[in-house]
């Protein structure tokens, strides 16, 4: 496997107004379509499942459509499109909303449900049967003594293609193609991660973060993609990777195509004007001796990088996110908590402006040993780290007069909302937030939860959790 990673990598930067033309030219530059499909091949296209939220939260559907058409035209027997199950959102729910199966069927391709949700959404959840199906869908693959559950499709198909949308990202600067396997790196490792988290509360968080990144790299070694496409036509900056209130779209009209993830991601970062030696993922990859040793050896066969550079503004730090009536303080934070906190805060800023306006001025503390809050009256502690490391903080007690005593007396501060978990659950945070400030003061969140209810979201979620635990 490592041999494949160290062979001379080829990357093509293609800038064209029309996506289809860029794709055709890019494939041609990398050696022609025969490099990526042969008569009778089965091909798996991995593309992140953010399809619910429109472009450019995910790669443009027109690009995916063209890719499928090219592969079918050149002899592909079956083209499978899917992504690894996203935590708490089943692929069946996404399909049900967007009608992806019917669309891909019309292109003679197949949308795959890697969380088997197509089975248990139709019928009742038969544990025994689902367990068998799950076992048939996944295989155990051991890397560095650790066992990962990997979809058979990834292991068995003749060709593997990653189609990835580039947007800014709070963890790795931007949504790199290696991140497409992020969810599989955590899948089935819930207990291990909880243990890691408990340990990290008393030790250096960097160790935990290294473990998270290391796992992601391990997963990327299981199957090296034959073709990686980083879609840089429309890029969300400021508050990506989702189209939040503060996100803004910038156009580069470019595709970066490559024959391995690492080189393609390195070139992508350079186009975005990022210092790759500050990117935790790339630094870890290089420390492990993976990828091209000499970066200048990455063969660029398209447009020059210098002509394609576009400087984008990355994600804000958590404490810089503008939330009305909210003072945010952050301590040391693990990557997983940072990611969830980032989305929670941006969601509030984008979709709950009225709730924020109605809420009293409050402080939100995130991470290990956060600084003292400005406001003690209403306080939110986000995540296990914040809860555990502030047990003896001053804000836990407040001074107050009782009705009968004139003297001030110290008493327990009850106006603290503790959001447990490492990382806390996104939906749970919003639910507790609404409960704490009251439904009447949170009309936006009330609406949001009614929307979820309309989708029978909890049923899907319950089944997905059951499936994960099998």
């Amino acid at each position, binding site marked *: 496997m490592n041999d494949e990673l160290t062979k001379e990598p080829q990357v093509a930067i293609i800038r064209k107004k029309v996506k289809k033309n860029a794709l055709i030219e890019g494939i041609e530059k990398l050696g022609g379509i025969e490099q990526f499909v042969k008569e009778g091949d089965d091909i798996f296209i991995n593309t992140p499942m953010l399809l619910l939220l429109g472009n*450019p939260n995910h790669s443009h559907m027109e690009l995916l459509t063209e890719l499928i058409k090219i592969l079918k035209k050149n002899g592909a027997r079956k083209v499978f499109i899917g992504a690894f199950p996203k935590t708490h959102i089943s692929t069946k729910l996404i399909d049900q909303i967007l009608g992806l199966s019917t669309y891909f069927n019309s292109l003679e391709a197949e949308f795959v449900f890697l969380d088997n949700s197509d089975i248990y959404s139709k019928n009742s959840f038969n544990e025994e049967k689902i367990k068998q199906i799950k076992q048939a869908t996944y295989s155990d693959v051991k890397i560095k003594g650790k066992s990962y559950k990997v979809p058979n499709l990834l292991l068995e198909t003749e060709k593997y293609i990653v189609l990835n949308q580039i947007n800014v990202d709070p963890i790795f600067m931007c949504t790199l193609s290696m991140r497409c396997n992020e969810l599989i790196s955590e899948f089935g490792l819930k207990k291990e991660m909880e243990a890691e988290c408990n340990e990290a509360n008393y030790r250096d968080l960097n160790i935990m973060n290294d473990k998270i990144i290391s796992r992601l790299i391990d997963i990327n070694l299981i199957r090296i993609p034959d073709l990686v496409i980083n879609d840089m036509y429309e890029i969300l900056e400021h508050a990506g990777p989702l189209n939040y209130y503060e996100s803004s779209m910038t156009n580069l009209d470019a595709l970066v195509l490559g024959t391995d993830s690492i080189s393609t991601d390195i070139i992508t970062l350079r186009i975005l004007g990022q210092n790759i030696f500050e990117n935790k993922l790339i630094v870890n990859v290089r420390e492990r001796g993976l990828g091209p040793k000499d970066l200048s050896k990455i063969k660029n066969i398209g447009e020059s990088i210098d002509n394609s550079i576009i400087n984008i503004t990355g994600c804000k730090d958590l404490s810089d996110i503008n939330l009305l009536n909210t003072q945010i303080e952050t301590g040391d934070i693990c990557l997983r908590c940072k990611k969830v906190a980032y989305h929670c805060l941006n969601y509030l800023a984008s979709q709950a402006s009225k709730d924020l306006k109605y809420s009293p001025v409050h402080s939100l503390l995130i991470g290990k040993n956060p600084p003292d809050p400005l406001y003690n009256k209403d306080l939110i502690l986000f995540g296990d780290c914040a809860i555990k490391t502030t047990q003896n903080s001053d804000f836990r007690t407040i001074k107050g007069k009782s009705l009968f005593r004139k003297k001030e007396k110290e008493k327990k501060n009850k106006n603290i909302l503790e959001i447990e978990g490492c990382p806390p659950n996104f939906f749970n945070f919003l639910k507790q937030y609404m409960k704490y400030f009251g439904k009447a003061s949170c009309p936006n969140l009330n609406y949001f939860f009614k929307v979820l209810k309309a989708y029978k979201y909890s049923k899907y979620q319950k089944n997905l959790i059951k499936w994960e635990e099998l």
Partner: protein
Amino acid sequence: MGRIMIYKEFIENWNKIIAYNQRLDSKGQTINSKSKEYRFPLTSLKLKAQVVHYLMKTLYPLFINDQENVLDLIISENGEKIEEIIFHRTKQSGIYHSSEKLSNDFFKLKYNLFKNLDSFFNDIQEKLLKKKKLNISHLRIVNSSAVPIINEYGDKIKTYSFKEFLIEFAALFQKLIKENLFIIYPEPTIYNFLKKFFILLNNIDLASILKYIISLLPNFNFAVLLDSDDYPLVIEVIRSLGNEGNLNFDLKLLGLDDLSLNSTALDRKNLLKEINEKLNVDYSYYVQQNQILNFLSDIFEVEVLTNKEKLKLLIEKFLYGIRSYEKVWFKIPKPFSYNTLLRFFVRIFGFQINLRKLSHWEISDFLFNTLDFYFGAEYKLLIIIKDLDLSNQKPSKKNSDSLKSTIKYTILFNVHNQSTRIIKLINNNEIPSDLSNLPEIRNELSKKYGYINYIIQIDESLIRSIIKNYIFELTSIKAFAKIKVIRRLKNDLYFKMFPELPPYKLLKEKGTLSLVRTFLPIFIDKHQF
């Protein structure tokens, strides 16, 4: 080659306006010209001389140019020769004092005017300054090939009703601006706005849109008092459907003296009552002229079409206007929904309806954020407008095949970076036969137009009832009619969306009253005082 002439009636009317302005200038504001009526240039509206004078004085500086003197040019088709030059002297912007035809060789073109407008403007300024010691504020350039079109239009408008005029006027200007047959330089914001708007409309006629919008409006008969210290104006608008199905849409512009009313003798409420009685209309509105004009000039800011934030701000301003009842506007008879007792009574049942507390800041935020979050920044949206009345059979979900004949318009919106870039009318024959199968329509049309992200199918009767109940009768308390609209939104026959995005799913799954309870706290502010 014969001389190119703008139609006679226009010239005569123009001379009368100039003569009136000259007399007004020599006699001051006291001029009595009650019996005289002039046509407002290029419109079907015959108005009192004072009204024409006042409108030009008010509208021209605001929408076209606020500086003095104008030069009109008629140029050859290829832009290489000047056919006619007319110099208009104005005492103030919009008030023309004289029009003088200059000799064709006053300025000799040495280049293509279309390609060198900037230099031409500077050169002609220089020449005017040298020869006449005068400056101009802007140029109005008409291509000679547009003259017959304008003349034909001018000939027809004499007999046109207001509705016909509006439609033909839109068609004329879409043609003139789109084909570069009429240019104003420097470009005023309204011209720039229209230019961008016509690009956006692509293959759609503005005239057809106006015609369709008028057909969707409910019947009404109301007056608006546009108040100002200078010259209050009254607009009377009537839309009615005759027994033979002929649609009447008329607008009259009057001064208070036309109604024998004195602006200073009555307070505004009583004045509006008088207007309501004299014109015998169903209801009347009071609003300040400058507020309407400011709002209109905000609309014509070109970025409104392409800048989401500007559009959001505009909607916010509009909603703020609506919530400012009895501050910015009022209505006679007073709407029942503003009755405090009624509001209190409705509140007991858990519904907070108070239009004075309309959450203007939140509504636009909520709408745009929902759109951005669920639709994304880059998408194609297909809207199918159908009319179930066109079906031979009684429409039901079972006979969806026959519904294809009910399609009226299929419109594709191409949205880039959160703003609509192109609107395209699609031939109805391209829609697959089963109109109820939206995924099939998406798959089929995506082959030709690229991936269509969202499809909305809506019945015309529903659009009509939304306009009637939520725009024209927003302030009325017709709860059942309003609830009926929401029920229809939940019915697939009248409204359908694919994919079923979260807000639509909620609309479908929730009971009507529960929906009202969910949305009212978002749309109405919590704090009453």
